[in-house]
């Protein structure tokens, strides 16, 4: 835990009001604060502006979307674009609810399987000593050092050979073995005190019941984080080359089709972009404190 440093503020009127808490850091100069917070402000605007535009465009009536000169902020906000989107949704070849169900199956399948597989493998890697342990973990770290594009082609062939091409499993199974999830989970589990498991062992509990009844409840922030990261990934997946049947495609695919409709669908397209961005951001917002707690253990030890 962070210890509080009580500082006398009488000579530090420059401390901005939001920092005049009971604790503060030492050695902060006025010029430094001004420089850094100014920089932060400018960069913050740069970071936020495109997403502010996404929100505003989603609320703009059609004439404002094509207005000259272009304005960032909406003047007469309307839900028209969203109603347009619903009309387009009700008019698809495959019923739109089908896309939503597909997304739920793929996302939940990928999420639950990944959290279970990664946690189950992370526990012995973090807490047991056995031959091959370092080798396996180093391979996982190595896998984080290249992107999935590298393995795309053989992965497609392997999925075809397994006969799961054009099924939900083609997206779900590879997602179970992502490296980052295992890595974060193992790092988080490592900080659990050994005594926790030893006392259960003395009571005669098997490894699986220790894992399920003692380890998992204690690493809740980590598996929530894994679930959110996995959700973000699965949410963005359009099914690509793996799903050919229209009835199997996820929501993301259907939404992208609408955006590609060009100028005639600019309004609905703006609503789509908003939905695509808003969902993962909302999930992050809800789980932020858990995610930050997990990331404190993300460091790479030598």
């Amino acid at each position, binding site marked *: 835990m962070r210890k509080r440093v009580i500082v006398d503020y009488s000579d530090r009127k420059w401390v901005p009001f939001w920092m005049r*808490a009971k604790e503060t*850091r030492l*050695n902060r100069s006025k010029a430094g604060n001004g420089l850094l917070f100014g920089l932060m402000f400018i960069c913050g605007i740069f970071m936020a502006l495109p997403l502010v535009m996404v929100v505003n465009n989603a609320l703009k009536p059609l004439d404002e979307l094509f207005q000259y000169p272009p304005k960032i902020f909406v003047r007469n906000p309307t839900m028209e674009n969203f109603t347009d989107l619903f009309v387009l949704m009700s008019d698809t070849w495959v019923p739109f609810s089908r896309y939503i169900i597909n997304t739920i199956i793929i996302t939940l399948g990928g999420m639950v399987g990944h959290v*279970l597989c990664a946690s189950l493998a992370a526990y012995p890697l973090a807490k047991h000593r056995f031959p091959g342990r370092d080798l396996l973990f180093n391979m996982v770290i190595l896998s984080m050092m290249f992107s999935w594009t*590298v393995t795309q082609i053989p992965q497609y062939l392997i999925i075809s050979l397994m006969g799961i091409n054009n099924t939900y499993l083609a997206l779900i199974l590879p997602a179970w*073995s992502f490296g980052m999830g295992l890595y974060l989970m193992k790092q988080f589990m490592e900080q659990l005190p050994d005594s926790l498991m030893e006392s259960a062992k003395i009571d005669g509990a098997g490894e699986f019941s220790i894992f399920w009844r003692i380890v998992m409840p204690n690493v809740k922030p980590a598996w929530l984080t894994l679930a959110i990261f996995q959700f973000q990934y699965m949410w963005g997946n359009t099914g690509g080359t793996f799903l050919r049947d229209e009835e199997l495609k996820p929501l993301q695919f259907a939404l992208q089709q609408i955006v590609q409709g060009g100028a005639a669908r600019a309004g609905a397209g703006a609503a789509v972009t908003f939905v695509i961005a808003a969902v993962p951001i909302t999930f992050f917002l809800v789980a932020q404190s858990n995610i930050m707690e997990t990331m404190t253990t993300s460091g790479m030890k030598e």
Partner: protein
Amino acid sequence: MANKRKKVSGDAITIAKMQSTLRYQIRKNRVSYVMLAPYFILFFLFTVLPVLTSIFFSFTDFNVLEMPEFVGWKNYIKLLLEDDIFLVSLKNTLLFAVITGPISYMLCLLFAWIINEFKGKLRAFLTLIFYAPSISGNAYVVWNLILTGDRYGYLNGLLLKYEIINEAILWMRTEKYILPVLMIVQLWLSLGTGFLAFIAGLQTIDNTLYEAAAIDGVKNRWQELWFVTLPAMKPQLMFGAVMQITQSFAVADISINLAGNPSVNYAGATVVTHLLDYGGTRFEMGYASAIATILFLLMVGTNKIVQKALRRVGE
């Protein structure tokens, strides 16, 4: 542990005996292996095996329909000596890696460091503002509106209004603008997991370290950053480096969606767009695998070098 045991006992025991202890170790820990099995079977199937097959295919001619035919180094020779577009895309990818990689790494660190000065709700809000672009899916298509080539584009509109330019610029159709603009968009997108790791890492640094440093004569925040903060968050620095490097080598989607594939005179081509071109469009899998193998070596090689360098921070 097993290795250590081998070293400790050294020549005292025979190889046969060592094997029996290894076998004993494995039998003793069989529950651990059972727990590892589901994850690692899939990991071998979808990560290890694909890397190995990709290396194998890179020495063949393979179009998916017929059996692969062994051709030796032909694909690599063609790539490096005859394929001008590959060299352009390699140059672009290296530029992304050398410019946006380190800059985004520094920005992650800088913003995390400043955010760490804030508290509570404001801190959570700032974290969200900087992190949101990286998880907003393909919301970066909004940059298409900003960069529209006529006067309806936001950027052109702004520059015209203040008379910085006289006529609208075709941002994504003019060779010299494509790469710099893509780099800026990539920077916008790049404050991801590494950034979160930095913020979290800064929070864990024990405040007594700062107090001790202040007593030892650390005068300002810059000295504090260099002598206390950075060495204390070395593990996070290494994790963040892996994230940012891998990301900067893999740039493709933004190039395809903003500049098109192929882009004007291949100004926005990267190794990955080239890979997608041969693997996804032309079905020359042997050749595409050679590209993938080179990309793999580049990513892993750079990561290894940077890890080695970062180990020396604060030494």
